[in-house]
């Protein structure tokens, strides 16, 4: 028989393993198919015409359904950002990198994106950026198809053009 432990048991380790198998859903599936074609798919608020990307089922603001879809090019403007010094698991990003909100041209809300190919000190609100995609034939319809965003070198956007899309 085992000796009773001298110290009282203070905790028990109980690991939990819960597997899931997601479906993307109608709206997200459209977005993922779009990425394969180097397009960002947005959905349009049927009441106000605002475009949400990635697509939303309904407008949280007007509560109207989003029944129409639009395809956006991967160009936009940095609306706000921060500098990150810790690595992201599964992403090959050079440290430090910039995590930014990017308002795509034609969209009314912003997406999160990493900015590369420039010094972190050069990133600023209003900077024009474009998506860098995985090469043709390697895109799988995944959010990883967008490697990161990089500056386009165009003149900065004026604050009034993006202030309501932060």
């Amino acid at each position, binding site marked *: 028989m085992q000796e009773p432990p001298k110290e009282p048991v203070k905790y*028990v380790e109980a690991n939990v393993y819960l*597997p899931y198998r997601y479906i993307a859903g109608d709206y997200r599936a459209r977005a993922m198919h779009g990425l394969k074609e180097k397009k960002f798919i947005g959905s349009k608020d049927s009441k106000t015409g605002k475009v949400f990307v990635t697509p939303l089922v309904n407008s949280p603001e007007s509560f109207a*359904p989003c029944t129409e879809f639009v395809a956006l090019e991967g160009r936009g403007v940095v609306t706000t950002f921060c500098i990150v010094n810790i690595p992201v698991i599964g992403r090959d990003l050079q440290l430090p990198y910039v995590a930014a909100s990017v308002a795509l041209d034609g969209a009314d809300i912003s997406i999160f994106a990493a900015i590369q190919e420039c010094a972190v000190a050069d990133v600023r609100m209003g900077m024009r950026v474009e998506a860098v995609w995985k090469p043709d034939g390697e895109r799988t319809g995944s959010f990883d198809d967008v490697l990161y965003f990089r500056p386009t070198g165009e003149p900065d956007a004026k604050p009034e053009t993006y202030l309501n899309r932060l």
Partner: protein
Amino acid sequence: MTQLRNVAVVGFAQAPIVAHDPHRMANEMLYPVVREALAQCGVERDAIDYQTAGSADYIDGRPFGFVAALDVMGTWPPRQDSHLEMDAAFAAHYAWIRMQAGECDTAMVVGYGKVSEGQPERVLNLQLDPYYLAPLGLGPLSTAALQASAYMARSGATDADFAACAARNRAAAARNPHAQVRDPAPAAALQQTPWAVEPLRQGYVAPVGESAVCLILAAEGRAEAMCRAPAWIHGVDQRAELQSLGARDLSRSASATLAAEKALAMAGLGSAADVDLVELSAATPAEEMILRESLRLPAQGDGRPAINPSGGAIAGNPIMMTGLIRLGEAFRQLSGGAGEAAVPNARRAIAHAAQGHCLQQNLWFVLGRERRWS
């Protein structure tokens, strides 16, 4: 509080219960249901004071899924909101309490959960205590089988009794367009189905199901304007008992019995036999028989009140919604929306919800077509 406030169910919409919706996420399933429930009441979302949801992020496997659902619930401009990691019927009780406190006059209650995307047996294993029971790998089906065994040992109920109960529910479900199991089967055929977990056969328990549900509650003064025939809440009570399965008599449900007594007393009724129909969140025939006993009704058989005119949870058991659907079914019966499943001249109903393993927590609503308090 000198007198309770009259609160009624005024709208209810649900997606049909299916094993797996391959095209829609939980939010995509919920949005049309919310729109439909509001439309039934002839209102827009700004008529709703308070919103509450019953769901579990462990079921969906999506962190903060309950926050994402606020978009499809119409939470703009921001309003009072809460979320329960329980069957949404308990969220409805929460809303009722807030109305009694005078904090709101109208409430939206939603339930959702894509159980097909995860493994509910594993998720619900985590409701058990982590030292003695969870490590055994028990899920809700195996604990329900323990309870069924305990009930058989005490009552003398047989496999044939379970089969008869399941057959009765399946026959009723054939008239319910929202039920998942809609193919009636004679008891003898169900008795031939393989064991799910002995003594429960596959024909006696609902397969995994998912849906999305929205129910609207309103207090007196608002309810009449939102619904032609509101289903007024006459009594409500919920009780919980010990989590540990070994510390209670699994062949009975003390919490269901006590909560039923309290809810009936609040409703001013002498007994459950005074109502026209009862909707039970009984996932197995043994649970149904235990709950009937809690109401002091015969454990088996037909008659008045009608038990589960919708087919009950045996014909469709979407986790997090089963209880709220019972409340919705009671509303349908009392407001004239039950279609083919209608119980003639139904004036009073009882709806039940359960949470936890082996009927650990029980909630009863007693409803009627007339207002309870003048």
